């Protein structure tokens, strides 16, 4: 859980690249308006 510092530089690299790739992937999907994409839950989750 990201409540703690990541332990190694390798983990930091992995997390940072994963973030970049997923961000790029979601941007690409939005641009292409691919089916199946769900940016938010059907019922927007509010304050529980």
């Amino acid at each position, binding site marked *: 859980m990201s409540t703690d*510092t990541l332990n190694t530089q390798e983990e930091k690299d992995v997390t940072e690249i994963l973030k970049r790739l997923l961000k790029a992937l979601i941007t690409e999907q939005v641009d292409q308006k691919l089916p199946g994409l*769900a940016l938010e839950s059907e019922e*927007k*989750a509010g304050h529980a």
Partner: protein
Amino acid sequence: MIVPKPHPTDGAPIRCLVIQLARLGDTIQTLMALKAAKQLYPRLEIHLLVRETFAAAAARVPWIDELITLPTKELLGPVISGTKSETDAIKDLARWVAPLVGKRWDLVANWSFSEASSYLTALLPAHHKIGFTRRDDFSLVSADGWSQYIHGVVQANVPQNIHLTDILTTQLLTELQIHYGSPADAQDAQVTGKNFFTLDLNEDSAEWPIQDSSRKWIGIQLGAGQSVKTWDPAKWAKTATYILNSHPDHHVVFLGGTNDLGRAKEVQLILQENDIDPRRVLSLVGETDFSLWASVVGRCQWIFAGDTSVIHLASVLGTRVLNVSVGPVRWSETGPYGNGHYVVSASRDCTGCASKSVDLAEHSCSEQVSAEAVFGTWLYANQEWTHQRKLPLAQHFAQLGFVDALAGIQIFRSRIRESDDGGGVIYEPALRISEGITPREWLSPVVGHIARAWYCGWTPSVGQELNRAAINPSLIQSLRLLDEAASVLERVCGEGHRTALELLEKTATLRSDRLMDLGQKNKLKALGKKLADLDGLVDRLAKADPTLEVFSNMSRVLMHNLNGNQLSELGRESAEVYRQLQLGVQLMRDWIQHTLGLARPVAIERTFQN
């Protein structure tokens, strides 16, 4: 509050995807929370996504319906080494993620609470989501109240005392109850136990001496996640020497990964110098896969460890833990879970802990905790059945001749609290620090109490965790000042609530947020400015007294997570935010009054005898 839509197929499985991309310790805590939920909602169909490196634990629980692994090495390794471009890696990632996007989830729970995982969560179609995800504009959104609390309090380093396992469990159960009704009667089914995992041990391991049930074993995990959280190997060796010399029926097994081989060698050399019989010591450092590791941990009477995943493993297996907590660790959130575990740590944050430094030179906390302190604590804990905890810990240390070992440390014992008292695990002081508690330490149960009021809808009585002996003049002085600031904050929140309601009233009748007359426009502008000024005031009050930071942090997170695009919706939700903050401030003030009341001198009725 969203009005729950009844699930269309009552009795059908609730298809739940849980995303846990953090480390093994987090995965084990996730499993604990999921098992509790599965017992209460048997039709919960759990699909668990973890990183391949930390999948071993999840692979050995039979009640997970599907284990999905993220092959980070395969997907990201070539990018890190420069042999593949990010553009090509995105295509690989898209192929990996496609089956998850293709499914229709009833619930996606993102328990990684990281930026990366929020993008993944945003990609997935689901009826409901909890945890971090992304909006249409890709801004981060905390989908539910507990996620907002993680964001604004836990990750912001504000002290609070609700264990993360309890947060995850409550968060999931709340979501399930809202959308799928009350849970089944689990009839006090146990979550933890020796059979938590289905282990596949090879034939060789059956011959390990640890299988001999006539011997008592203490497991010592030598390493920890970071070097600043790792206790000195020489101190582990000294602790083991004390145990082995005083308890002829006990044996010690050292555990750890290949990174700990150097520490294991150092420990073994010292034990040899101390003339310890080598047949009473076993080192499995660098030799255990998950099955053997879990089997050994499950067979030990005690596990001694720093802040590392073995304390969660021991917790789920029902093995008692002595947690030597050094370095920047929030053990009240991530410590051993269950009854009768002990935590030994420095009594105050050192310079390195306060700044969360990873530089070992800045940490003096590790030096504070001695082998005598750890051995003395274990001896006390191990003899609980004899002294029934009626023997004061300080007296026990005096009998051992180890009084000096108590200087600069604190010792806590874990207990699962009755649900009527607030539920969850708490750590009760087994040794009270003579100088009393600091305002920051006072704040921890207060924030936990506020969270229960916000998200559970009820709270136990104020001040349960507080003991009169923990209160000192310095705390009293700080709380008197805090009460002045908190009373101002309470009025600010009340004014914010009224202003937001006025905004709602003025905007509810508008045909459009754009079409309005000049008078209306100026009025709305003035209300907007007033709310911005009140937000600024909340921030300034928190800067003046950091004890109030919990409210400025939560204000920012809650305002960021407002739903709706129309002014009237924003007005309604802002009013709700101010109401929530005001409730929290009122509770904090109740705690202040309770604490000040405890500190007042109590008149003793004098009895005259002739």
